């Protein structure tokens, strides 16, 4: 009797239209949506993995660890946290979406997870041959906001480390070209200072003070291992330092020698317009 009651209640709701079949298109859309979301999250995981590899290989980040405990701060400061967090988020999302799809039907999640992670790692490595990282790096340097956000540690000036090509060298300081312009590197009092020549690529740890950098430890590194820093330097100097742009650059981004410096200093003291000072002193 009770059974009939339930049967009649449900059939009554169906007949009166209170309960309706969901359209088949809802299910098709659901499957398509799930498939698309899964594909995108896997592609983004591959992209972020690729960018992490690119960043670690082409920038100064990992190289700071060669200074031992002195390089830890510089390493932590230049670490691409956002890339790593995004990679973890998207790989987690891919894992979640795969459990919601038919692909995972009755399959052990452990195997699926291993398969998914392997796929992302393999394709992440393969995609490094397509210079995706370099193209995103270029966009970051030209100010494209999303690229700039993810590669911020690459474009930001570091407080505890610096890398660049020696442009000028004396006993007490170096002037190096960096992706942020020319920087003064104070080497005074450093023990075991290696023989550094103009054109050497140096990596140093220490403390930043504006555009100056007080070195604790310094070493000459292979230019080839600093692809992104080199490109940053080329971008800063080759493209920007032409006749049209030179007057817009701040003093510490310009090429200047000791006499120029003194001239600029004197000119400033005379309260002359700084732009005219640069024009007059840098001839």
């Amino acid at each position, binding site marked *: 009797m009770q059974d009939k009651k339930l*049967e009649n209640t449900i*059939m009554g709701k*169906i007949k009166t239209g209170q*309960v309706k*079949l*969901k359209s*088949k298109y809802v*299910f098709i859309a659901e499957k398509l949506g799930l498939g698309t979301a899964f594909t995108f999250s896997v592609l983004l995981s591959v992209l972020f993995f690729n960018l992490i590899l690119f960043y670690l290989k082409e920038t100064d980040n990992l190289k700071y660890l060669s200074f031992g405990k002195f390089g830890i701060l510089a390493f932590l400061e230049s670490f691409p946290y956002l890339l790593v967090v995004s990679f973890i988020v998207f790989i987690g999302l891919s894992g979640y979406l795969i459990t919601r799809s038919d692909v995972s039907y*009755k399959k*052990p999640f452990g195997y699926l997870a291993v398969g998914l992670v392997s796929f992302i790692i393999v394709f992440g490595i393969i995609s490094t041959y397509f210079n995706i990282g370099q193209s995103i790096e270029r966009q970051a340097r030209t100010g494209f906001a999303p690229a700039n956000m993810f590669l911020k540690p690459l474009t930001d000036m570091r407080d505890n480390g610096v890398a660049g090509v020696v442009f000028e060298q004396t006993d007490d300081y170096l002037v190096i070209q960096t992706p942020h312009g020319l920087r003064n590197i104070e080497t005074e009092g450093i023990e075991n200072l290696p023989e550094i020549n103009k054109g050497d690529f140096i990596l140093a740890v220490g403390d930043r003070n504006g555009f100056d950098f007080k070195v604790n430890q310094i070493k000459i590194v292979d230019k080839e291992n600093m692809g992104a820093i080199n490109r940053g330097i080329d971008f800063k100097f080759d493209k920007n330092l032409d006749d049209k742009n030179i007057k817009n650059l701040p003093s510490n981004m310009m090429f200047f020698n000791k006499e120029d410096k003194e001239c600029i200093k004197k000119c400033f003291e005379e309260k002359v317009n700084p732009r005219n000072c640069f024009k007059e002193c840098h001839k």
Partner: protein
Amino acid sequence: MDQLKDEQIVESILNDDKELYREVIRRYENKLSRYLSKFSNNKDDIEDILQIVFIKAYKNLYGFDINKKFSSWIYRIAHNEGINHLKKQKNVKIALDDLEYKLIDEKVDIKKEIDQGFLKKDIEGVMSSMDNKYKEPLVLFFFENMSYEEISDVLRIPKNTVGTLIMRGKSQIKEKLIEISKKHAR
């Protein structure tokens, strides 16, 4: 009508013969009601959940893959609703009827280990206190007489895992009953 397979009935319903859904309800009402009784002791609650299950199943009929087993699909819906109910109402005790009680006694093979027969409430207590991960496949295996393949369909876990969980579940029941029998003996 009886000769028609569930999947054929579903196909006909989708081809606008809505009245045939009555047959689905007739076929599964008792089975699902018994299954849901493992999630709730309250008859009214079971009836409410059952109604939700049949309505959800009807609404989502286009989501059912005709190439798969309908029984597993509708059990899956019932299972999910049962779990939702358990989340709302904690400490639900499993109630066994006499037949089910004997079934556990036989299938777990307790008597070989101990001479003492168990009270129904002992077995109910042991089943209720078990981790859901073991309880769910055990209920489907013992009381719904489902094969590992069908349980695997309902719980969406690999067949091998079903086997492992049932084996571990059985030995857990056995261990707990042995403990109880020792307590009784004291």
